[in-house]
C-alpha cells in the first residue's frame, strides 16, 4: 500500500479502477455499467468521479495524473472490465485493435483529428464516424504510443517531422476539398 495519502482509494475505488473506468466511459460504456463493474452504486461512483480529479488538482508533483495516464492506457487489461465491451461495429472493432497495434496508423489519425478541428469539424467525432474508434480507445492508444513516439522524435527528429508534414498535407487537402477549398487558394505570390 502506498504511503501517499492522495493515492488512497475513494469509497474502495482505487486510482487504477478510476482510470480504467474513465477510459471505458470514453469507449462507450455508461456510468451505470461502469459503476456496476466496480461493484458500487451510481452515487458512490459519481462521488469518486468528483473526488479523484480533486486529488489530481491538489497534487503539485503531478504524480497522480501521471499514474492516471498510465492506468488509463492499461484499461483493457483491468480485470473488472475484461468482459465488458461496448457495442461496436465489426469495422470499428478492427480499427480499435489496429490503432493499438500499429503506431503509424495511430499517428496518421492523430494528425487527421487535429486537422479536422482546424477545418471546423469535431475531430474526435470524425474519427468515430470514419473509423468507428471511440475517443476512449483513441486515448488508450495515445497513452500506449506516447513513450515510443517520444523516443522516435529523439532518434530522428527530421524524419518524424517529415512524416507529420506528409500526413498534415494529406488531410489538409482532404478537408479543404470537402469544403470547396481554402479561402485564400486563389491568391498566389
Amino acid at each position, binding site marked *: 500500500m502506498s504511503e501517499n495519502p492522495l493515492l488512497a482509494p475513494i469509497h474502495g475505488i482505487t486510482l487504477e479502477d478510476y482510470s480504467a473506468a474513465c477510459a471505458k466511459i470514453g469507449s462507450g460504456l455508461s456510468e451505470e455499467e461502469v459503476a456496476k463493474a466496480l461493484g458500487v452504486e451510481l*452515487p458512490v461512483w*459519481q462521488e469518486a468521479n*468528483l473526488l479523484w480529479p*480533486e486529488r489530481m*488538482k491538489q497534487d503539485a508533483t503531478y504524480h497522480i495524473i501521471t499514474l492516471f495516464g498510465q492506468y488509463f492506457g492499461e484499461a483493457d487489461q483491468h480485470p473488472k472490465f475484461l468482459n465488458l465491451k461496448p457495442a461496436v461495429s465489426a469495422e470499428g472493432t478492427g480499427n480499435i485493435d489496429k490503432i493499438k497495434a500499429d503506431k503509424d496508423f495511430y499517428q496518421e489519425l492523430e494528425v487527421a483529428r487535429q486537422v479536422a478541428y482546424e477545418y*471546423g*469539424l469535431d475531430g474526435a467525432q470524425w474519427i468515430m464516424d470514419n473509423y468507428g474508434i471511440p475517443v476512449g480507445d483513441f486515448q488508450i492508444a495515445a497513452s500506449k504510443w506516447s513513450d515510443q513516439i517520444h523516443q522516435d522524435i529523439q532518434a530522428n527528429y527530421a524524419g518524424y517531422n517529415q512524416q507529420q508534414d506528409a500526413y498534415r498535407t494529406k488531410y489538409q487537402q482532404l478537408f479543404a476539398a470537402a469544403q470547396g477549398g481554402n479561402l*485564400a487558394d486563389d491568391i498566389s505570390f
Partner: protein
Amino acid sequence: MFSLFQKKYNNPALLEKIRETQERWFTFLGKLEARMEEMSTAAIPELRDLFNQDNDPYKRAHGHMLQGLLGQINQMRHKANEAREENIFCFVSAAEATLPAITSNAGQEYHNALYAFRMACSDRYHLFDEKLNHHITLLQKAAGEQDLEAIYREELTIFENIRDKFSCKQCGGNITIPQMFFIATYVNCPFCKTQNTFMPSTGAQLVLHQARSLAEQRTAHLLHAYEESVPKNETLYKQYLRAMFDEWNKIVPDMAGENEKFYQRLLNDHLINKLK
C-alpha cells in the same frame, strides 16, 4: 593593376528584380489581408448569433465554427510563410551568391539594396502578422462571454420549484431535497428511512462544472486590478484568489473542503513562480 579590384559591379537587372519582387510581396500580403478582413467582417455577426442561439451548454457549434475560421487564418499564415521562404529568403541568398564579396567596395550598392529589400519585406510581414493576430482576437472575442450568472440563477429557480416534489420509492411519503445536489446522491425518507437516490438534472450537473468559471466571472475585477498593478502587487493577487474561492464555495458548498486544498496549492504555485 589595383584598378581591376576597384572595378564597379554593374547589374541593373538585379535591381529591377529586387524592386519587382518587393512589389509582388507587398501586393500578395495585401490581398491576403483583404481576404482576412472580408472573412472576419462576414463571420463575426454569424459567430455571435450562433453563440446566442445555441442551446448546447458547451456551445460546440460555435466552437467548431470558430476553429474553422482560425484554421483558415492559419492557412493564410502558412501560405505567407511559404512564399516568404521561397521568394524572399531564397531570392536573397541566391542573389548574394552572385555578388562580389561584401568586404569589397564593388557590389556594395547591391548588398545595400538587398539588405534594404530584406528589411522592407520583413517589416511588411510583421505588419501582416500583427493584422492576422488582430483578426484572431476579434474572432475569439466576437461572441463575448457566456452569462453564467443567469444560467446559475435559472437552475436555482428550477430547483426551488421541484425540491419538494419527490416521493419515497418505498412508502410514497413526500421527500424534500435538502439542498441543491450536483451528482447522484442518497436521500433518506423522513418517514420510513429508506435510502432513495436523487438524480440531479443535466442543468444542475452543469452548475458543478461551471462553478469555477462563474466564480472567476464574479471576481474578474479583482484579477484585473492585480494584472494592471505595476509592479505586480501580490497582495492584490491573494485578495483575488481568496475571493474567487469564496465565491466558488458559495456555489458548491459541499466542495469547500476540497477547494481549500486546491486553493493552498495554487497559492503555493504562485509564490514559487514569483521566486523563479
